[in-house]
C-alpha cells in the first residue's frame, strides 16, 4: 500500500509537470530558421529600402500600455533601422499610451514569415508591402484594412504622389501607402566603361549588346546578377515585355483578353536570350544570391547591374575604404534601353516601392503612426539621409541630394506607363512562377516560347476575369 501510494503520487507529479510544460504553446509568429543569404560584408551602411543580406530580429521588450502596435520592416541596414526606430520613439513620446514593437527582418525571410502569419490569419499591425496583386490577395481575404476613408481625413491621400499610391490601390480602395518609390535601371561604373572604350551609356538594346562584348574583350565582367534569388533576373524579361508590348499587351493579358503567350512576350524572351548567350554575368551567377550580387557591385567586380532605386544604398553600404570611394566616384545610371519594334514610350518604367500595409487587427493608432511617418518633414529628412529615396510625399524630393536618385525620381514620376514588378503585381502563384521560369531562361533550360507559355498557363488558372 505504502509503495503503491508513493508510485501513484510520483506518477501524478510527473503527469502534472508534463501537462504544465505542454500547456504553453509555442509563441505565435516565432521565427522559423531564417535562410539568410550569406552576408557579403558586415559594414554598417547608408541605407535605402533594401534586400540587404543580414538577417536580424530586434524584438522590443514588451511592456503594458493601453495600445500595442507590432511593426515589421525590412530595413536591416543600420542607417534605416535607426531612423525608423527614431520615428517610432518620437511617436511614442507624443502618445505615451502607445507602444510600438518593431521587428526587423531581411527581405526573403520576411516574405516567408509574413506568409505564415497571413495563412494563420494573424497579420502584424504594420508591415512592409510592395502593393500589387500580393496585397490584393490579402485585401480579398480581409487581412488588411481599407484605408480609403482614413486617408480622406486631412486629405492625406493627396500628399502622396499618385503614381506610387496607385500601386497600393486595389479596385479603387487604398490598402497601403508607399514611403519610397522608384524605378529599375542600369547602374554602371563609368571608369570600367571608359576602360573598355565605351564613350557613353547605350541608348538602344543593340548598343547594350555591343557594349557587353566590349567589356568582355577588356576582361571586365559586364553584368552582376544574383539569379539564385530569381527576382533580379525577372527584371530583364519584364522590362523587355514593357518595351515590346507596352501597357496594352500587359493589360490585355492580365484582364484575360489577351495572353501571356502573345508575340510581345515571346519576343521579349528572344531579346533577353541574345544577352544571355553573350555570357555577360559573373561566374556562378545562377548560385549567387542578391547579397553576392551586391558584393560584386560593391567590390567593383562587375561593370553594371539592372536594379532598383535602392541599389545605390545597398551597394555603397557593402563597400569599404577604397572600394567605396571608387564606387561613389564612378557610379552612374542609365534607363533600360529602347528596343527595335518597341511599342509605347521610351520613358515607360518598371519599378515599385516600399510601403506599409495595415493588418486587420491593428488599432486606429497604427494608421495615425503611418501618417505621422509620412509627414513631409520626416520624408524630407529621410530623403536627405539617403533612406527614403526617392520619397513619395510631394515636395520631399527637395531633400534629395544624390543627382542620380533625383533623376530616377523625375523619370519615375514622368513615366506614362509605370509597371510594378510582375512578381508583386501578379498573385503569388503566378508571380512566383514568373521568377522560376525566367530563371530557366538564364540557365538555358527553356525557350522564349516555353517561358511565355508556362506563364500563360499559370495566368489562365489563377487570373479569373
Amino acid at each position: 500500500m505504502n509503495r503503491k501510494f508513493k508510485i501513484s503520487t510520483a506518477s501524478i507529479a510527473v503527469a502534472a509537470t508534463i501537462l504544465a510544460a505542454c500547456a504553453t504553446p509555442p509563441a505565435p509568429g516565432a521565427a522559423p530558421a531564417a535562410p539568410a543569404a550569406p552576408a557579403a560584408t558586415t559594414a554598417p551602411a547608408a541605407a535605402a529600402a533594401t534586400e540587404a543580406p543580414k538577417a536580424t530580429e530586434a524584438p522590443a521588450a514588451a511592456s503594458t500600455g493601453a495600445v500595442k502596435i507590432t511593426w515589421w520592416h525590412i530595413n536591416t541596414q543600420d542607417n534605416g533601422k535607426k531612423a525608423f526606430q527614431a520615428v517610432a520613439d518620437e511617436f511614442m513620446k507624443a502618445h505615451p499610451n502607445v507602444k510600438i514593437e518593431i521587428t526587423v527582418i531581411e527581405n526573403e525571410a520576411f516574405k516567408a514569415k509574413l506568409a505564415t502569419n497571413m495563412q494563420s490569419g494573424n497579420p502584424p499591425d504594420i508591415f512592409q508591402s510592395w502593393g500589387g496583386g500580393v496585397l490584393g490577395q490579402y485585401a480579398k481575404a480581409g487581412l488588411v484594412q481599407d484605408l480609403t476613408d482614413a486617408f480622406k481625413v486631412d486629405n492625406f491621400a493627396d500628399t502622396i504622389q499618385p503614381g506610387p499610391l496607385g500601386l497600393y490601390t486595389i479596385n479603387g480602395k487604398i490598402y497601403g501607402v508607399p514611403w519610397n518609390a522608384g524605378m529599375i535601371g542600369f547602374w554602371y561604373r563609368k571608369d570600367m566603361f571608359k576602360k573598355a572604350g565605351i564613350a557613353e551609356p547605350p541608348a538602344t538594346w543593340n548598343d547594350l549588346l555591343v557594349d557587353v562584348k566590349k567589356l568582355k574583350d577588356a576582361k571586365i565582367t559586364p553584368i552582376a546578377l544574383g539569379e539564385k534569388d530569381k527576382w533580379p533576373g525577372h527584371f530583364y524579361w519584364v522590362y523587355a515585355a514593357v518595351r515590346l508590348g507596352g501597357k496594352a499587351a500587359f493589360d490585355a493579358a492580365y484582364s484575360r483578353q489577351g495572353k501571356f503567350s502573345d508575340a510581345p512576350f515571346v519576343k521579349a524572351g528572344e531579346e533577353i536570350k541574345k544577352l544571355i548567350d553573350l555570357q555577360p554575368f559573373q561566374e556562378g551567377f545562377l548560385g549567387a544570391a542578391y547579397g553576392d550580387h551586391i558584393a560584386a557591385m560593391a567590390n567593383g567586380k562587375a561593370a553594371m547591374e539592372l536594379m532598383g532605386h535602392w541599389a545605390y544604398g545597398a551597394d555603397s553600404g557593402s563597400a569599404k575604404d577604397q572600394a567605396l570611394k571608387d564606387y561613389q566616384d564612378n557610379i552612374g545610371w542609365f534607363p533600360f534601353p529602347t528596343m527595335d519594334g518597341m511599342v509605347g514610350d521610351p520613358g515607360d518604367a518598371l519599378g515599385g516601392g516600399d510601403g506599409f500595409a495595415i493588418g486587420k487587427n491593428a488599432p486606429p493608432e497604427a494608421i495615425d503612426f503611418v501618417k505621422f511617418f509620412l509627414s513631409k518633414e520626416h520624408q524630407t529628412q529621410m530623403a536627405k539621409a539617403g533612406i527614403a529615396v526617392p520619397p513619395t510625399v510631394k515636395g520631399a524630393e527637395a531633400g534629395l541630394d544624390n543627382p542620380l536618385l533625383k533623376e530616377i525620381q523625375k523619370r519615375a514620376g514622368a513615366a506614362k506607363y509605370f509597371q510594378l514588378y510582375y512578381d508583386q503585381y501578379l498573385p503569388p502563384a503566378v508571380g512566383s512562377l514568373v521568377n522560376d521560369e525566367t530563371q530557366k531562361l538564364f540557365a538555358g533550360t527553356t525557350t522564349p516560347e516555353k517561358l511565355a507559355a508556362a506563364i500563360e498557363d499559370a495566368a489562365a488558372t489563377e487570373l479569373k476575369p
Partner: protein
Amino acid sequence: MTKSLSKPLTLGVLLLPPAIVYAGLVIWPMIQAIIFSLYRWNGLGPLQQIVGLGNFSKIVGDEVFRGALSHNLIIIALSLGLQLPISLGLALLVNQKLAGRSVFRTIFFMPFVLSEVITGLIWSFIYLPDGGLINTLGGQLFGMSKVAWLGNISTVLLAIWVVLGWKYFGYHLVLYLTGLQNIPQELHEAALVDGATNGQVIRHITLPLLGPTVRLTIYLAVLGSLQVFDLVWVMTTGGPVNASDTMATYLYRFGFQRFQLGYGSAVALIMFILCFGFSLIYQRYVMRRDLAL
C-alpha cells in the same frame, strides 16, 4: 483499488499527456493536411474550391516533382553506396586500439553537432566561385579553374550530397562503433587462433554480427534522405532551375511561396505515404528478426 485495475490506470494516466500532445500536434495536422490536399486553396480565407484528386494527378504529371523525387533517390543511392560504407570502414579503423582513438571519434562526430542551417551557410562560403575555399585552394595548389559548385546544374546535387554525407557520417559511425563493441572479443580471438586473416574475420564474423546495426543505419539513411530540406534550402533553395530540388523543397515552394496550400498538402501526403510505406515494409521484412520481442 484491485491490482488488476491499478496498473492499466497508472499507464493511462502517464500516457495521457503525451498522447494528447501527439494527437494535437501530429495526428490532427495530418488529418487537416489530407483534407486540404483535396482543395485548391491559397491559405487565406475559407476552403472553397474542391478539386478531389486533381492535385495528385498534377503532382505526378509535373516534371519538376519527378525531378525532385529522382534527386531524393539519387541522394539515397549515394548515401547507401558511399556514405555508409565509408562510415563503416572508419568505424572498423577507430575500433582498433589506436592511440588517440577517442579524439578521432570526437572529431568525426563533430559535424553532426552543427545545425543544418549553419552547416549550409558555412559550406555555401566554401563553395563560392570567387574566393571560396575549394576554388582558391584548387586554383593555387592544382591550377584548377574555377567551378561554381552550387551554381552549376551538373554539380549542384553532388555538392549538396557531399555536405550531407559530411554532416551525418559521424552519426552512423557512432552507431557502428556501438554495434562493434557489442561483438564479443572471444570470437575474433578464436578465429585468429584458427588461422583466419583479418579480412576473413571482418567478412565472416564482424559484418554478420553487425547486421542489426547496418540494417538500422540503412533505415535511418533512407528516411533522412527522403526528407532532406534544411540544407538544400539554405544552400540553393532547390535551384538553380530545380536541379537540386527535393520533395521537401518542392513542397515548401508551392505550399508557402506560391500560396498553394492544397497542392503543398498533397505533396506532403505523397511524401508521408512514401516514408511510411518504406518504414512499414522495411520493418516487417528486413528488420523483423532484429525487432522480434
